[in-house]
């Protein structure tokens, strides 16, 4: 970068609103002068990590994003895939980590609101929400309040808008003590030929603002702390964004109603960096300019400046480019729902963003150079040091009954019922597989088919070996979708990491991406959307690297699904996939020995595909009575979960009963139950899939091992169902 424009001396580094000095110089070059205050604000948010992906772009580009069924990959508000019959599924995941830590209820609630808008802005009716949550150690003084607030916030928003929250995951780990993660995902459906994009078109077309009014919510915190706002600072301090799910519900209905007409040229939600990013992105993608007259922006507060209006992150707002003769159509629909609808500008051929207020031009900047020059860093990265496998033979022995009891009631495995019962997971009436299974299944009205969806990540594996962990996160979603009988189609990913300017952290990011890439390729399971959240650290202590994967799959025939509940006494229990007994980075090692060590279980993508395709085939052919994939806690935990769900027991005779075999976390495994084991095992042999009968379902509420171990299912239920409610009812 070479500087052509002279900088004024008064712009000290901390006046640059978070821009690096070199970035500021570049901004000056683009402007041919020093930017005004409003312009600087716009540069600063457009080039922020959040909007520009400057640290991650280089690597995100390496992810596979294409398949025959991908209609729209990353780059739009959400990803779009073809699900047959002229239907499309639109989905994305997004983080709201920092806001949720500051104000858990509103942070989480507005996270849900934001991701819903990303999905319905493309024309989809949202049909399901999911969320992936990570909290600190349960004993940390902040954890309980964060759990309570985040869960209430997700429920408070999702329940009110009438979109069922059907799935998610929750982990606890000390690395999240100062930095919880709240990742929210929305899945919607639309007609394939009625998808709306954000690229503006047609100079002269009106730019229309709809939804809630603009206030001083969430204006760029870093900037607000800068010196220029000393007077009146109380008034102008950034405020926490408060969500209004009631308005969002009306906004969804109004937008979908408008989308049913032919009025819309382009549409985009106002998310991070609000009016700035929506207007710049829309105009930029269309190669056009945009003139905004901020006096027409519906405002909630008086005396807002251009800077404040451009950077406000008030919720429940959308920006629409309309056909000029359709303004009345839009006005009528938004009036019906009592929402604001105001023409605040028009598209131009100038390629410039011009912002006026009180008749004065507060910003006039070239869009393409700003977007193109948006920085892309090739940050130095250091690969994570490989760990040695753990030698299970050298570990102390424990009674498997006691281990199972402890694992089933440990924070990471205990039932999440306390959480999902606060989410309306039934509204709309199409929730087929409710929370608590491997993946949720949501039916589509008037269709035979259904969508399956889930979110997963195993951060302790990613921490131990980013590449293996990245791959594992992808395959775990693939396996969960497979376990309910769905064909996995595509993923959305939420990359939650620490400070990318530290080479070790960047190394985690790069490793995870490499692993994800391999898995996506091997499974024909592309990435269609995603989100990156960096700088998740407090006092130099980074979170465990957490690439959350949201997977979506399809069941051609919704009536041919499987779930994990053991069904009939006498059914044969079959273990599919090979078991060596891998305890490195396992939950067993952490909970029983207090050790977070060792290489994580290797991921064999060929075996994953072979075993998964085999299991899915059995489900679709109706040859299994129940199915569950094995993950955290391994075989015995998986069986216990099946027993709890089915209120049954099992008589087990696995080939080995050492703890490594019973609790090892070898990948690519499923447990299925069947009435016809002979046929199943023969088919497995033919498909070259390892499979063996390891027991039978019984009517006694007991798990028994052939060497005499007996475990009460009711006792397990107490441990499993008891932990979270008991934990949440304590006060601190």
């Amino acid at each position, binding site marked *: 970068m070479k500087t052509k424009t002279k900088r004024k001396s008064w712009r000290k580094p901390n006046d640059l609103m978070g821009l690096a000095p070199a970035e500021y110089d570049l901004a000056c070059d683009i402007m041919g002068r020093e930017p005004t205050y409003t312009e600087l604000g716009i540069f600063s948010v457009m080039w922020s990590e959040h909007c520009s992906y400057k640290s991650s772009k280089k690597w995100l580009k390496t992810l596979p994003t294409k398949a025959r069924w991908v209609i729209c990959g990353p780059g739009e508000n959400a990803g779009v895939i073809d699900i047959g019959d002229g239907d499309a599924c639109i989905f994305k995941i997004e983080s709201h980590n920092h806001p949720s830590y500051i104000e858990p209820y509103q942070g989480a609630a507005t996270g849900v609101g934001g991701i819903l808008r990303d999905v319905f802005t493309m024309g989809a009716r949202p049909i399901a929400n999911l969320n992936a949550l990570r909290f600190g150690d349960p004993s940390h003084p902040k954890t309980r309040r964060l759990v309570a607030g985040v869960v209430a916030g997700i429920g408070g928003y999702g329940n009110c808008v009438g979109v069922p929250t059907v799935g998610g995951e929750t982990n606890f780990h000390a690395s999240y003590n100062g930095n919880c993660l709240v990742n929210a995902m929305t899945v919607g459906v639309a007609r394939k030929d009625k998808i709306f994009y954000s690229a503006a078109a047609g100079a002269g077309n009106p730019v229309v603002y709809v939804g809630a009014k603009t206030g001083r919510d969430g204006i760029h915190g870093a900037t607000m702390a800068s010196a220029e706002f000393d007077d009146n600072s109380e008034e102008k301090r950034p405020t926490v964004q408060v969500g209004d799910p*009631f308005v969002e519900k009306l906004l969804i209905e109004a937008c979908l109603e408008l989308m049913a007409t032919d009025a819309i040229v382009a549409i985009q939600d106002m998310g991070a960096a609000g009016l700035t990013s929506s207007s710049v992105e829309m105009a930029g993608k269309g190669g056009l300019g945009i003139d905004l007259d901020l006096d027409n922006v519906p405002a909630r507060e008086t005396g807002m400046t251009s800077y404040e209006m451009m950077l406000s992150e008030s919720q429940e707002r959308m920006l629409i480019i309309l056909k000029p003769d359709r303004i009345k159509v839009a006005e009528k629909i938004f009036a019906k729902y*009592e929402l604001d609808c105001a023409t605040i500008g028009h598209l131009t051929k100038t390629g410039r963003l011009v912002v006026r207020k009180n008749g004065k031009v507060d910003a006039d900047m070239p869009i393409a150079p700003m977007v193109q020059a948006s920085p892309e860093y090739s940050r130095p990265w250091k690969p994570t040091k490989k760990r040695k496998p753990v030698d299970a033979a050298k570990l102390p022995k424990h009674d498997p009954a006691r281990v199972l009891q402890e694992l089933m009631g440990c924070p990471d495995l205990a039932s999440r019922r306390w959480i999902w019962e606060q989410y309306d997971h039934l509204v709309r009436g199409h929730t087929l597989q409710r929370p608590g299974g491997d993946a949720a299944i949501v039916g589509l009205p008037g269709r035979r088919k259904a969508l399956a969806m889930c979110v997963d990540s195993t951060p302790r594996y990613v921490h131990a070996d980013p590449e293996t962990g990245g791959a594992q996160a992808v395959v775990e979603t693939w396996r969960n979708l497979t376990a309910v009988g769905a064909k996995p189609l595509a993923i959305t990913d939420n990359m939650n990491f620490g400070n990318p300017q530290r080479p070790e952290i960047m190394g985690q990011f790069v490793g995870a991406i490499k692993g994800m890439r391999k898995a996506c390729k091997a499974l024909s399971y592309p990435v269609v959307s995603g989100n990156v959240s960096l700088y998740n650290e407090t006092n130099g202590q980074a979170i465990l690297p957490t690439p959350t994967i949201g997977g979506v799959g399809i069941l051609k025939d919704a009536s041919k699904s499987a779930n994990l509940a053991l069904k009939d006494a006498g059914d044969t229990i079959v273990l599919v996939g090979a078991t060596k007994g891998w305890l490195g980075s396992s939950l067993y090692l952490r909970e029983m020995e207090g050790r977070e060590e060792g290489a994580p279980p290797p991921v064999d993508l060929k075996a994953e595909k072979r075993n998964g395709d085999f299991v899915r085939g059995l489900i679709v052919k109706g040859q299994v009575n129940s199915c569950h994939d094995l993950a955290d806690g391994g075989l015995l935990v998986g069986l216990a979960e099946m027993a709890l769900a089915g209120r049954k027991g099992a008589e087990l005779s696995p080939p080995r009963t050492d703890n490594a075999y019973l609790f090892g976390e070898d990948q690519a495994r499923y447990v299925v139950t069947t009435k016809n084991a002979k046929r199943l095992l023969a088919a497995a042999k033919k498909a070259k899939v390892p499979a063996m009968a390891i027991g039978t379902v019984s009517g006694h509420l007991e798990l028994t091992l052939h060497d005499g171990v007996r475990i009460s299912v009711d006792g397990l239920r107490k441990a499993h169902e008891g932990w979270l409610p008991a934990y949440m009812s304590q006060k601190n």
Partner: protein
Amino acid sequence: MKAKIHVTLKNGVLDVQGKAVAAGLASLGFAGIGDVRVGRFVEIELSAKDRASAEASVKQMCEKLLANTVIENYRIEIAE
């Protein structure tokens, strides 16, 4: 002793209830309605040896439980 506590949203924080109530009142035909703000009102009976210690302890209660100080203000009155 009795503590009366008013918990209200800070200035600038969107008051979704207030907005809804204002709209509701307008649709019922009430004219001339300006800003409407909705808050909480908490009354607590407590035994404290004096006003000052009551006030101090109620302040603690507000900070710890009764108000969400990120978005809310509170005001305490102590009555005998």
